[in-house]
């Protein structure tokens, strides 16, 4: 108690000096936690969107399709679907068929990709489609991007013919009707994708009961690894199960790079801040050289002096980071409920494409409570502050007491 009292009072002997350091530590803890929680919120959002848009938490592909995207690499889904329906860990699963095609018009042909899916099922949850508030009135209805509509020259309810190869390799025409024209935030989708009903495409192109992909949404994404492993035991032939980490390597590495960048910046900031702490403690120790000399004359040994200065570093670091933590938690309450709207910023810096690592990002970032990071950022600077005390303590302990007292 007496040590802490002494440390606390010693810190505040120079209010300006310690006050500045207090604000620096407090500020960096605050920034560290807020950015960390925002970043994780963003990652969670990205993963979530990517998972719903693409391959789910766990996806089933033919290995050949996974590696080469060869259109012929489809597989029969009937048995797998039955299996999935009986597993309580599965929230939902979607079948998809991806077919390259041409839109045939008088003005020429336009290459497109048909993403065929159970439109009725997927429209409410698919990140690109969920705000449509539209239900296809028939199986021939498709959704296309604004850009494609403009290029091809169609408007809602127009009919058009798409040319694609069927399962046997014969070119075949499919008659579809434009159900909805949407301005997609991703250019590649806006210009060149047709969302169509999977049964309709299967019937037309003779892909009976076959898919390129079954995308599985789990109730708890943390069981993805285990679930995928189990699936692989039951799957036969070249059909395999992949977790989202395996199927979206690009996204995983984008997140890893982004997070490493954040960690690196924060580490750099923390080191600079700690050099500041060393400096503050050094000046404080130098200001009271005589006083510490007296303490050593009275019988304090180098261990006592170490403890004294260590506690000064620790209480300055501890107090500052505690205040930073509290402010960050308050901010995070706001950011996790209301979120941070970056849409203006995105429009300003990146045009209209809000994509990152091949994934569309929601311009409203909601932070999450990532406790490992919250605790980590708070505690780490306290540890560094304690370590910072080592240098001034070593310096004063090496001085000769008799010399100090003579002055």
């Amino acid at each position: 108690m007496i040590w802490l009292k002494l440390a606390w009072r010693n810190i505040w002997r120079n209010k300006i000096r310690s006050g500045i350091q207090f604000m620096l530590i407090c500020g960096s803890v605050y920034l560290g936690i807020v950015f960390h929680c925002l970043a994780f919120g963003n990652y969670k959002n990205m993963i979530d969107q990517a998972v719903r848009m693409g391959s789910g938490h766990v996806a089933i592909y033919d290995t050949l399709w996974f590696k080469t995207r060869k259109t012929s690499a489809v597989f029969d889904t009937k048995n797998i679907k039955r299996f999935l329906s009986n597993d309580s860990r599965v929230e939902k699963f979607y079948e998809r068929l991806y077919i390259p095609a041409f839109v045939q018009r008088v003005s020429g042909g336009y290459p497109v990709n048909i993403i065929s899916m159970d439109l009725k099922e997927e429209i409410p949850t698919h990140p690109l489609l969920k705000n449509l508030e539209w239900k296809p009135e028939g199986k021939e209805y498709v959704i296309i991007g604004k850009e494609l509509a403009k290029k091809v020259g169609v408007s809602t309810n127009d009919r058009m013919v798409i040319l694609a190869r069927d399962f046997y390799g014969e070119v075949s025409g499919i008659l579809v009707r434009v159900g909805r024209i949407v301005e997609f935030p991703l250019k590649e989708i806006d210009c060149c994708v047709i969302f169509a009903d999977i049964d309709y495409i299967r019937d037309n192109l003779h892909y009976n009961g076959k898919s390129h992909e079954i995308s599985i949404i789990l109730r708890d994404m943390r069981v993805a690894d285990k679930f995928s492993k189990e699936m692989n035991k039951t799957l036969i032939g070249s059909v395999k199960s992949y977790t989202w980490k395996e199927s979206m390597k690009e996204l995983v590495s984008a997140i890893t790079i982004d997070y490493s960048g954040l960690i690196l910046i924060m580490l750099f900031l923390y080191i600079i801040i700690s050099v500041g702490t060393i400096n503050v403690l050094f000046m404080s120790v130098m200001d009271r050289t005589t006083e510490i000399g007296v303490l050593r004359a009275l019988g304090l040994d180098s261990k006592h002096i170490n403890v004294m200065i260590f506690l000064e570093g620790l209480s300055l670091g501890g107090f500052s980071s505690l205040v930073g933590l509290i402010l960050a938690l308050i901010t995070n309450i706001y950011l996790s409920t209301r979120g941070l709207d970056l849409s203006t910023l995105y429009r300003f810096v990146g045009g209209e494409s809000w994509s990152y690592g091949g994934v569309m990002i929601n311009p409203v970032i909601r932070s999450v409570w990532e406790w490992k990071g919250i605790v980590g950022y708070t505690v780490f600077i306290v540890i560094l502050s304690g370590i910072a005390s080592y240098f001034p303590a070593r310096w004063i302990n090496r001085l000769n007491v008799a010399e100090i007292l003579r002055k």
Partner: protein
Amino acid sequence: MEIVKLEGVSKVFKSGEEIINAVDDLSLVINRGEFVAVVGPSGSGKTTLLNIISGIEKPDEGKVFFLGHRIDTLPENKLSELRLNKMGFIFQTYNLIPTLTAKENAEFILFLQGVPASERERRIREIFDFLGISELLDRFPKQMSGGQQQRVAIARAVVGKPEIVLADEPTANLDSENSKKVISLMKKLNKEMGITFIFSTHDPLIMESAERIIHLRDGKILKEERKD
């Protein structure tokens, strides 16, 4: 019983070309319960002598004994322990810890000695009462006059029940009134608690109150006076 014994102790300082024999082949015995003044002009080696006795300074030659044990060969941490538990210190410039109150200054020593909290409280009250400075308990050093600070410093020096108190020119910064008060308090502690005192001074009035006066000149004992 011998509390301090020096045998042929020398301490040499070099400042530039010059070699100074601050303490020069000095031998000395001080017994328990003595009240000793070390006197001499500035530069005669008083501070160096006291520092050698407390182990703050190591002699270049000779042996230093404290309570019968040789201490000039002890490592730094052992000397600290010895100073903390067996010695008290009074300085010319009081040197109270400015961030601690009078009471806390004294308590800090007891705390480091490992005295339990309730016992600390009792001992501090006792000693502050004894010295008649109870009203100063909760004052910070800057809220006290020089004389008051030095009396608190005396309390700090003796609260840990030391064998000996070493006081280097304790009255040099005080007026004669306060000087007399400080010396008489030291004497009271010497008489009633049996604590050995060695203090240095160059004030003739102050040294008169000592029972034994050691005159120092150029690091050597010039003469000794004893009163009974």
